[in-house]
C-alpha cells in the first residue's frame, strides 16, 4: 500500500487545506502542505526498500476501473526503476519548493488555496508517474494540467493571468486530444492500455499502427512538454507565482512527456520513424527556444524559454534512443532549473515584483546569496563542469553523435552543440543583466527570509553535485539504474568521449564568454532584424493567431448568426409563417356572402360529378 500512500498523503493535504484552509493560519497551511509532501518523499524512500521495485516493478491493482465490451482497464499503480526516479524528483524538489513558498507567499492575504492546489498537483503528478497503465497515467496527465491551470490563474483577478491559464489548459487539451486518439488506437490495435500488456502486444502490431500510435502520443507530449508546435503556453504560464513556475513549469509537469516516452520506450523503439521525428522536433525546439531566450527581457520568460530548450534536449535524447541520458538530464534539469526559478523568484520578491531585466542590475551586492545561487544554476545550465547540467547534456550530445555515426545525419549533433552555445550565451546574459551591470533602479532590496533561502541552498547543492548521479567515476548510480531499466548497453563510440566532451565544454565556454562580453559592456544589445524575429518568437504565435484562432472564431460567429438564426431557425420560422399566411388567406376567402358560399358548394358538386364522369 505504500505507493498508494505516497499519493494519498498530499491528497489529504489538499483536502484539508481546501476544506478547512480558511480556518488555518497562513504558515499553518503552508507547513501542513510542505509536511504532506515531505512525508510523501519519506514514504517514497521507504517504498524503494521493497526489492520488487528493482526487479519487475512493484505493482498494485485495485480491480478494474473501466470495463466495457472488449475493453477493460484496471486501476493500478506501478513503482519501478523509472517511476522511482520520478517519484523522488517530484516529491523531493516539490518539498523544497513548498517550503520556499511559505516565505514567498507570506504577503498574500490567504495561502490555503495556493497550498491546496500545490498539494493536489503533487498528488496528480504522482498518479501520473505511478500509474500502471496508460489510462491512469492520462488521469494524472490531465490533472496536472488542471492544477497548472489553477496555479497559473492563481491571481485570477489579473486578466492576463486568467488568460494565460486558459491558454495553457486549452493548448494542453489540443495535445491531449492527440494523446487520447493514440490511446484509442492502442486499444483498438493492442486491446489493452496496460504497460506490460502493450509491450507484450507489440509484436502483433503492424508497423504502420505503431508509428501512428506513437506519433499521436508524442503529439500529446509536445503539448504537455511545451515542444514545437505546442510550446506557446509555457512562456505565458509565467504569470503564475514563481514557485509554481519552478515546480510545475520547470522541474516536474513539463517533463511528463519525456517520462511517458520513457515509460513506453519499447513501443517507441519499435517505431524508428517516430523516433527520428522526436529527435528532430527536440533539436529544433531546443535551438529555437534558446534563440528566443537570447533576446527576451523578462527574466522569468528567459527561464521559461530555457526550459523549453532544455526539454528539447531531453526529447533529442529520447529520439536518439539515449533514454537514460534523457531521464538523467530530466533529473539534473529539475535541480538547476528549479534553483534558477527560485532565485529569480527571490529577485522578484526583493524587487517588489519587477522582473524586467532592463530595470534590474547591480543585485550581486544586496542579494549576495541569491546571486550565488542563480550563478550556480546558470553554470549548470550552461553545462560547464563540474556542475550537474554538464554531465547530462554531455551524455546527450555524445548519444547524438553516436546516433549520427550510426548512419543518421549529423544535424542533430550540430543542433545540439549550437544550442549549447546559445544557452550559455543567454544565461550569461541573464546573470549579467540581473546582477552584474550597474543598477537601473532606486530600490534597496534585501535577501528573503530563511524559509526561502534554505531550499535554494539545497537545490544549489544538488545542482553542483547532481551530476555525480551519472558520473562514471562514482558509479553513476542513477544512470546505471536507468540503463538497466531501458536495457541499453552503455554507449560506446569510436571517437573517445573525451574529445566530444572537450568540444562541448569549449562551445559552452565560448557561449558564456560571448554573452559576458556582449552584455557586460552593452547591456541594451539587440541582434537587429534577427533579434526582432527571435523576440517575436519567430512569429509562430502570430501565425497561430492569424491562421487558426481568428478564422475559427470568425467561423463560429458566422455559424451562430448566419447559419443558426439565419438558415436553420429561419427555415423553421419560415414554415410557420407560410402556414399562418395560408390561414390568413383562407380567412379572406370566407367573404360572408351567402351567394359566394352557394357558388363554392355548387363548384364542389360539379367537380365531384365531373370527376366521376371523367374517370
Amino acid at each position, binding site marked *: 500500500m505504500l505507493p498508494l500512500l505516497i499519493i494519498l498523503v498530499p491528497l489529504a493535504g489538499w483536502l484539508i487545506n481546501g476544506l478547512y484552509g480558511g480556518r488555518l493560519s497562513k504558515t499553518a497551511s503552508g507547513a501542513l502542505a510542505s509536511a504532506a509532501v515531505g512525508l510523501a518523499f519519506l514514504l517514497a524512500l521507504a517504498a524503494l526498500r521493497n526489492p520488487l521495485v528493482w526487479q519487475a516493478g512493484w505493482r498494485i491493482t485495485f480491480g478494474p476501473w473501466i470495463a466495457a465490451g472488449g475493453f477493460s482497464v484496471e486501476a493500478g499503480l506501478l513503482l519501478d526503476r523509472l517511476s522511482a526516479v520520478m517519484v523522488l524528483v517530484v516529491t523531493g524538489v516539490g518539498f523544497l519548493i513548498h517550503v520556499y513558498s511559505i516565505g514567498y507567499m507570506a504577503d498574500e492575504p490567504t495561502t490555503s488555496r495556493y497550498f491546496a492546489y500545490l498539494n493536489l498537483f503533487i498528488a496528480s503528478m504522482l498518479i501520473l508517474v505511478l500509474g500502471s497503465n496508460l489510462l491512469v497515467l492520462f488521469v494524472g496527465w490531465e490533472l496536472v494540467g488542471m492544477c497548472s491551470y489553477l496555479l497559473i490563474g492563481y491571481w485570477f483577478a489579473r486578466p492576463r493571468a486568467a488568460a494565460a491559464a486558459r491558454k495553457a489548459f486549452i493548448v494542453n487539451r489540443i495535445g491531449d486530444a492527440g494523446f487520447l486518439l493514440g490511446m484509442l488506437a492502442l486499444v483498438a490495435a493492442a486491446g489493452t492500455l496496460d504497460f506490460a500488456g502493450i509491450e507484450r502486444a507489440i509484436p502483433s502490431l503492424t508497423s504502420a499502427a505503431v508509428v501512428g500510435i506513437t506519433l499521436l502520443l508524442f503529439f500529446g507530449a509536445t503539448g504537455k512538454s511545451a515542444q514545437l508546435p505546442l510550446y506557446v503556453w509555457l512562456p505565458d504560464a509565467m504569470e503564475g507565482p514563481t514557485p509554481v513556475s519552478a515546480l510545475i513549469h520547470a522541474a516536474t509537469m513539463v517533463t511528463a512527456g519525456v517520462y511517458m516516452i520513457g515509460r513506453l520506450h519499447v513501443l517507441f523503439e519499435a517505431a524508428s520513424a517516430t523516433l527520428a521525428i522526436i529527435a528532430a522536433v527536440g533539436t529544433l525546439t531546443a535551438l529555437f527556444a534558446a534563440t528566443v531566450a537570447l533576446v527576451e527581457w523578462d527574466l522569468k520568460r528567459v527561464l521559461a524559454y530555457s526550459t523549453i530548450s532544455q526539454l528539447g534536449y531531453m526529447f533529442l535524447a529520447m529520439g536518439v534512443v539515449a533514454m537514460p541520458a534523457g531521464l538523467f538530464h530530466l533529473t539534473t534539469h529539475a535541480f538547476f532549473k528549479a534553483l534558477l526559478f527560485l532565485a529569480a523568484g527571490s529577485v522578484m520578491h526583493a524587487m517588489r515584483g519587477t522582473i524586467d531585466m532592463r530595470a534590474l542590475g547591480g543585485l550581486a551586492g544586496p542579494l549576495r546569496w541569491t546571486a550565488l545561487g542563480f550563478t550556480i544554476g546558470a553554470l549548470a545550465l550552461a553545462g560547464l563542469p563540474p556542475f550537474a547540467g554538464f554531465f547530462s547534456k554531455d551524455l546527450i550530445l555524445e548519444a547524438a553523435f553516436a546516433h549520427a555515426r550510426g548512419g543518421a545525419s549529423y544535424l542533430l549533433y550540430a543542433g545540439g552543440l549550437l544550442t549549447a552555445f546559445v544557452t550559455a550565451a543567454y544565461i550569461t546574459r541573464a546573470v549579467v543583466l540581473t546582477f552584474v551591470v550597474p543598477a537601473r533602479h532606486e530600490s534597496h532590496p534585501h535577501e528573503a527570509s530563511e524559509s526561502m533561502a534554505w531550499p535554494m541552498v539545497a537545490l544549489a547543492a544538488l545542482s553542483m553535485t547532481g551530476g555525480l548521479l551519472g558520473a562514471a567515476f562514482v558509479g553513476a548510480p542513477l544512470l546505471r539504474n536507468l540503463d538497466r531499466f531501458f536495457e541499453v548497453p552503455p554507449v560506446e563510440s569510436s571517437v573517445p568521449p573525451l574529445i566530444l566532451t572537450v568540444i562541448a565544454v569549449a562551445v559552452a565556454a565560448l557561449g558564456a564568454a560571448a554573452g559576458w562580453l556582449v552584455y557586460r559592456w552593452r547591456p541594451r544589445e539587440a541582434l537587429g532584424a534577427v533579434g526582432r524575429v527571435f523576440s517575436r518568437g519567430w512569429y509562430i504565435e502570430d501565425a497561430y493567431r492569424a491562421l487558426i484562432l481568428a478564422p475559427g472564431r470568425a467561423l463560429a460567429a458566422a455559424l451562430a448568426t448566419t447559419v443558426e438564426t439565419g438558415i436553420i431557425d429561419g427555415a423553421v420560422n419560415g414554415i410557420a409563417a407560410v402556414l399562418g399566411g395560408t390561414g390568413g388567406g383562407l380567412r*379572406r376567402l370566407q367573404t*360572408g356572402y351567402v*351567394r359566394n358560399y352557394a357558388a363554392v358548394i355548387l363548384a364542389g358538386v360539379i367537380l365531384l360529378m365531373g370527376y366521376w364522369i371523367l374517370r
Partner: protein
Amino acid sequence: MIPPAYFLILSGILLSLGVAGVLIRRNALVVFMSIELMLNATNLAFVTFARLLGSVQGQVVVFFVIVVAAVEVVVGLAIIVDIFRARETVSVDDVDLLRG
C-alpha cells in the same frame, strides 16, 4: 309515348335554372323561390322514375317532399321577414356581418 329522358332533361333544366337563380339573385325571396323551383325539379324526377318503374314509392316521396317544402317555406319566410324587420332589406348581400 314520350321518352322518360325528356322529363328528366326538363327536370334537369329546371334544377339548373333554380341553381342559377340562387347564385345570381340577391333578393332573398327570389333566391328562396329558386330553391322551390329546384325542389319541383326534383319532384318531377321522382314522378318520372315512379312512372318508369311503375312503383308508387316515388310519388309517396314527392308527397313528403311537398310537406317538407311547405315547412321550409314557413320557416324561411319567417326568417326573411324577421331579418327585414331588423334591417329593412331583403338582399342576401346585405347580411354580411359574419365573415373571415
